[in-house]
């Protein structure tokens, strides 16, 4: 097991390296630079700015300086947030993004699995149709629209919950963002769980268990749920990655201080350091999550072995 994990980590390093390199190249190929704007800087001042950020050096040297810096734990300066380094920005935003992402993940997984089981057991009855409706909304309606509608109805018209903001830890401020973020994932998980469960409920060993007179709930708990979870578990890794990386819209609409907002703003403003920093963070996170999912998958399905 330990050898397996070590081998996977070693295999992940080139992937991370390639991702960073590609990101570095693509950023430099994009037209416009971090200091192009409505009001150009005087040439002498611009020269000093470029020198400050090593942008006056050849590309290969910039790349080398960046990579050696990263290996020493220095993600460099931000070119749009002068008062913070990239590491400081990530350190401030990361706890919030993780909290939002994991809360949404737990909620989406719990609701998705339970709804999927209920729909499968009640196939072609009203709970099943209700699930289809729930899935349709979650998958079809874009989350920025759901966010705006919830903000308007629950936050403005009804006044039940805050319409946004983050005044420090506050469950009330977390409820709407978590609902918006988790809904599409809960919908997908429930659909996966429903399909898998229907398949398992039709297998011989489940029918045999039922024929022995074991109660339906016990059959479900002992024989059906665990194997039916396999496709769900496969989805959880990418699903959690999507939740953590896809919180951008939610953070924008609700004005939340996570790092999702950095990514697109930094890319638009050509903040090379911040884009690369957030890319590194997401690449590492996705690699770790995929590894965890593989381990859990092997634990659930004994046919899978650590190789």
């Amino acid at each position, binding site marked *: 097991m330990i050898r397996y994990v070590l081998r996977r980590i070693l295999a992940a390093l080139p992937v991370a390296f390639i991702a960073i390199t590609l990101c570095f190249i693509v950023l430099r190929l994009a037209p416009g630079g971090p200091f192009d704007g409505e009001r150009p800087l005087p040439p002498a001042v611009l020269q000093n700015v470029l020198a400050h950020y090593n942008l006056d050096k050849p590309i290969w040297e910039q790349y080398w300086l960046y990579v050696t810096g990263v290996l020493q734990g220095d993600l460099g300066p931000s070119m749009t947030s002068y*008062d913070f380094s990239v590491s400081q920005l990530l350190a401030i935003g990361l706890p919030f993004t993780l909290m939002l992402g994991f809360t949404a993940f737990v909620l989406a997984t719990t609701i998705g699995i339970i709804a999927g089981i209920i729909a499968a057991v009640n196939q072609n009855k009203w709970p099943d149709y209700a699930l289809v409706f729930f899935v349709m909304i979650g998958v079809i309606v874009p989350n920025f629209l759901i966010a705006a509608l919830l903000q308007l109805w629950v936050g403005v018209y009804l006044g039940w919950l805050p319409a946004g903001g983050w005044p420090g830890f506050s469950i009330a401020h977390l409820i709407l963002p978590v609902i918006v973020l988790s809904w599409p994932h809960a919908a997908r998980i429930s659909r996966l769980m429903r399909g898998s469960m229907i398949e398992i409920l039709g297998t011989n060993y489940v029918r045999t268990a039922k024929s022995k007179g074991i109660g339906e709930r016990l059959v479900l708990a002992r024989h059906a749920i665990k194997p039916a979870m396999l496709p769900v578990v496969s989805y959880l890794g990418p699903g959690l990655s999507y939740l953590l990386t896809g919180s951008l819209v939610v953070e924008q609409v609700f004005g939340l201080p996570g790092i999702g*907002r950095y990514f697109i*703003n930094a890319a638009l403003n050509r903040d090379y350091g911040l884009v690369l920093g957030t890319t590194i963070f997401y690449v590492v996170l996705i690699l770790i999550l995929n590894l965890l999912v593989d381990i859990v998958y092997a634990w659930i399905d004994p046919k899978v072995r650590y190789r």
Partner: protein
Amino acid sequence: MKFKHVLAGGVLAGLMATAMASTASAETLNIFNGGEPASIDPHRVSGDWENRIVGDYLEGLMTEDIHAEPILGQAADYTVSDDGLVYTFTIRDDAVWSDGEPVKAQDFEYAFKRLLDPEMAADYAYLQYPIKNAEAVNAGEMEIDELGINVIDDKTIEFTLEQPTPYFLDALTHYTAYPVPMHLVEELGDEWIRPENIVSNGAYTIVEWIPNSYIRSEKSETYYDAENVDIEEVYYYAMDDISAAFQRYRAGDFHILTDFPTDQYQLLQDQYPGQAHVDPFLGVYYYVINHNMEELADPNVRQAMSMAINRDVIGPNILGTGELPAYGWVPPGTANYDFEEYRPDWADLEYGERVAQAVALMEEAGYSADNPLNLQLRYNTNENHQRIAVAIAAMWEPLHINIELFNSEVAVHYDALQNNDFDGIGRAGWLMDYNDPINMLELLRSDIIYNYGRYNNAEFDELLRESATILDMDERAEILRQAEEIAMSETAAFPIYYYVSKNVVSPEVEGFEANAKDIHRTRWLSMSED
């Protein structure tokens, strides 16, 4: 789950929200402040959203009153030499930093030298170029000690200017002229700006900064006018989504929105009467003309294109907030320029007649349905820019002009404009840095980098140079007016509309006065008891 559980959950959430809302005292002001500040260091900031924060915690020798007019700030008084070249300021005895250290002339000298140090690379250092040798120092061509600033004693500082500059007092209200606490900056370097270290000499002190969320300031008890400052605490919220910010205003989260979605203007007027403030603002939205293109070298073609732009429909109908049509280059309300805004003769013609004359001019220049003029219209990605571009392209169609619309993100757009790399027309805008016509007119000077279209007229340049040597303000204004008339009669660019500021202000807030700079320092605001 039973319905009563759902109900209980809703009630609990409602109570929590109410409890949190009630923690904000009557003296707390919540401002939706636009984007995340790049910095709160006065020598690193460049946006109006940063100015709102920095101008509340730092104050220059001069500051703004409730109408954004320059008044004495940290200075108790000043004198100007007869030739208009030397300004001497005496600093208030009760001007102190929030850690109790006195504000000294040396703090100002240190700040100006820091601003103009090329290593600092301050975006807006050029605003202080009226000071003798400032430009050369900033370009690294002269030693910093040769800057025209002289500390006479701890409370007296003298500025020598390159030439008489009527807007110099106004320039001293800008954040580039704010002092920094020398004792702290020398000790802590860039770390002086951290909320745990920072000190202020303004009405407020920064106490908290959550990036991408908010900055919180508290009233400074060491400020010389603290007894007249009403609001105890200010939250400056950073959000990119204006629509979401608008919903939060409706939910009661904000007292002031510094911008709002234009498509909500009618709703605001209907449901929140008197809360939307759309006021003239010192700036012009315009289209750059690439004068290096042969097709646009003919002034008749440029004039025809300008005549065909129906500016009257853009503010009220396309933008929906009633921006004033612009035919001139200097916005109405500009200081030191007591003229009606420039209007060409044809502006008063009925629009159909204007188009007919424009078509005739184009045909005279050789353009017809069989031989159309093909141009590109570049704009940066933005819904309003797109709507205006589509409308104006349609207005030019009868003139036998085929427009290719080309949009790009802002960095790419301005990169192209600065390099004169566009095939026809480009969108631009200018918000004035200081209240003087020269700040607008200089955009068309042949040797300035902001002259994206490369308009080049020696007489225009000479008038601008001449204006800089004249002490008589009326005479200077006449010369600048001549320059504006030359540029506009030649259609150096297409002014489209004069900008407006767009604020939404809760009835709880008092003291918010419309002004052309859209500067509303929190020290002048108060909250009603209701």
